């Protein structure tokens, strides 16, 4: 990626400085760069050991035939596992499920997060308590959150939502049966809205006060201030939120395992991989799925970060 070894400082060369002074400055700079690199080395080594070695092992596993139920029949099969990944017909629906669930959850979380951030940005009594309560969903463990929603909210017998619908005289909703995708998206949105809210709140509170005052003095109303000053300022924060949220939500497993068990178009790549590894007990095939997933992610991430996202560009390029 960027930044680790590159020299970010711009050396200002003055016209009247002598050559020897330039050389000394240059040597000091190289020494500084080397020291920086040496200080970063432990962290990099740790990162490589923890992420790259398992990944290489996974690539190795994807080229062998290894089913845990037949531990004596292990052997090299080249690209057979990849062939079965692409021909099994599970990959494409899984990609669609992953894209749908992730994008819907992220977009809705950002919208709701923005709404709540605006609400909490104003000074009102009890703001601290309100903020703490708002953050709580994000603090829950994903499995606990999914279980609460499954039994206390969505259940047709004992769930609150259906009870409320019955009170209002409406038909009850069979969540997992009729709306499996929305069941998962609702739980994820509920959990990640606080996350987005915190990021956007930081953005809102980081708005320079003089700019807002100037806007008021110039006669801009609340709506125009919001659309022309606040939103552009928040763009970087939204991008950070979307990036981090996507990375986390892509990997979620608990809501799908607990609410729908992968049926109804909710079998994301993470859940599919789990099924192949722990129910199919086919290590080779699961590893192949894993490698394909990572390659897809790298491709998408590279394209998105280079073209769409401005958050990683230096100030002048925005």
């Amino acid at each position: 990626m960027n930044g680790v070894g590159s020299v970010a400082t711009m050396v200002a060369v003055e016209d009247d400085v002598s050559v020897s002074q330039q050389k000394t400055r240059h040597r000091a700079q190289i020494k500084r760069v080397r020291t920086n690199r040496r200080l970063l080395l432990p962290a990099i080594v740790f990162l490589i050991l923890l992420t790259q070695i398992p990944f290489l092992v996974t690539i190795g596993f994807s080229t062998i035939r290894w089913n845990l139920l037949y531990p004596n029949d292990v052997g090299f099969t080249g690209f057979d596992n990849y062939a079965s990944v692409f021909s099994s017909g599970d990959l494409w629906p899984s990609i669609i499920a992953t894209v749908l669930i992730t994008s819907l959850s992220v977009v809705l979380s950002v919208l709701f997060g923005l709404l709540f951030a605006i609400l909490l940005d104003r000074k009102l009594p009890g703001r601290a308590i309100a903020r703490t309560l708002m953050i709580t969903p994000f603090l829950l463990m994903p499995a606990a959150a999914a279980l609460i929603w499954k039994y206390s909210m969505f259940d047709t017998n004992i769930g609150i939502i259906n009870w409320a619908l019955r009170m209002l005289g409406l038909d009850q909703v069979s969540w997992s049966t009729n709306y499996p995708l929305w069941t998962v998206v609702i739980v994820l949105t509920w959990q990640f809205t606080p996350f987005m809210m915190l990021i956007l709140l930081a953005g809102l509170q980081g708005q320079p006060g003089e700019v807002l005052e100037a806007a008021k003095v110039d006669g801009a109303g609340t709506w125009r201030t919001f659309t022309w000053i606040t939103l552009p300022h928040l763009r970087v924060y939204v991008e950070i939120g979307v990036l981090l949220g996507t990375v986390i939500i892509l990997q979620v497993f608990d809501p799908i395992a607990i609410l729908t068990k992968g049926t109804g178009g909710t079998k994301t790549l993470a859940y599919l991989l789990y099924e192949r590894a722990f129910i199919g007990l086919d290590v080779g095939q699961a590893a192949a799925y894993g490698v394909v997933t990572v390659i897809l992610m790298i491709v998408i991430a590279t394209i998105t970060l280079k073209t769409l996202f401005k958050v990683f560009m230096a100030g002048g390029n925005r």
Partner: protein
Amino acid sequence: MAIALALTACSGNGTDEEPGIDSPDVGGESVTLNVATVNNGQMKDMESLKGEYEAANPGVTVNFQVMEEGDLRSAVTADVASGAGQYDVITIGAYETPQWGANGWLVDLTEALASDGEYDVDDILPPVRVAISHEGRQFAVPFYGESSILMYNKEVMDAAGITIPNRPTWQEIADIAAQVDSPDMSGICMRGKPGWGDLFAPLTTVVQTFGGNWYDEDWNATVDTAEWREAVSFYKTMLDDSGQADPVSYSFNECLTALKEGKAAMWADASVAASMLEADDSPVQGKMGYAHMPVVETDEAGWLWSWNLAVPASTKQQDAAVDFVKWATSKEYIELVGTEIGWSNVPPGSRTSTYEIPEYQEAAAAYAPITLEVMSAVDPTQPGVNPQSWVGIQYVAIPEFQDVGNQCAQLVADYLADRTSIDDALAKCQTLAQTAGEAHQN
């Protein structure tokens, strides 16, 4: 750690203890047994009574790792298959036991059980013993066994003037369910949650009693057949007409809650549910009636399952583990549960002698006779109309069945939720089952 050290310090010389099933000769060292088990009521009771075992066997500490069934199966399979040796005692079902025994992954317990007269291995219910043995060798001991029965709310039936016979047919039950179905209470509750142990446990028995099965004798898959079509569409129609809303999120626990709350009038599921419905904290205690699992073409349609304790071959504490396993399935343990926790919590369906204990007969009067009747009558070697090449009722005792059953359950669940047609679902399931069956066609 501190407790283990303290126990070591406190325990006397190992040779002072009497030999017998309660005291392994651990020689005064501290032994920690890791027990992997499923989160059912009886297992939790075992965990709460482990203090008794530890007190009788100083130096032994028992750690329970309680997991949900699916997680337990994957964790234990991965551990046993890779020889990791993480667990000393594992809880496995009747599905895994003969296969893992054949693989050499489990310690052969036949001698250890036969040589112990007090243990009385012949007391174990014969069909259960058949299901967990391989070529005459026994590789686990049943902790509790169950079949499936029909459970119904007698009050509701009496109010509607309906009598349910002891051996009903599925058509009768479907009709009765439609009769008593109302907006507040569904006529029947059946499992619909995708999973080979969830949806397919009852559904396979329904298929079998309609005349179908997973494979024929030569391991050709027979899923895409008229019998399957009839059975599965019957199941869906019954649930659509008189079943619970949101069927694909209902499994054992959800239906149990529905019956306890009076939101369902009937339920065909594991016989062990009866003990929970008759427990002191159940709102429907004393109001339930029980009958044989409904049939169509066969005499019985109950399934057979047992949760068993086994000792992985990779354990480093084989003697202590075998001893614990014998304690937890002994007649003494059953008495212990009865006196300490309650007679209706006694692990059912493992030993014939349990059904002769007067206190148990009294506490379980409503459902013990029928459980014993059904469990003695089911035949795991041929539950369906046609012969089959494996031993097992609601599962096919091949390793691929977990995967095949799971994927097929997802397909059928999609059908129950109106997301796919029955022809699509069965056709796809047939392909999966056929591939798995071919591996055994030799």
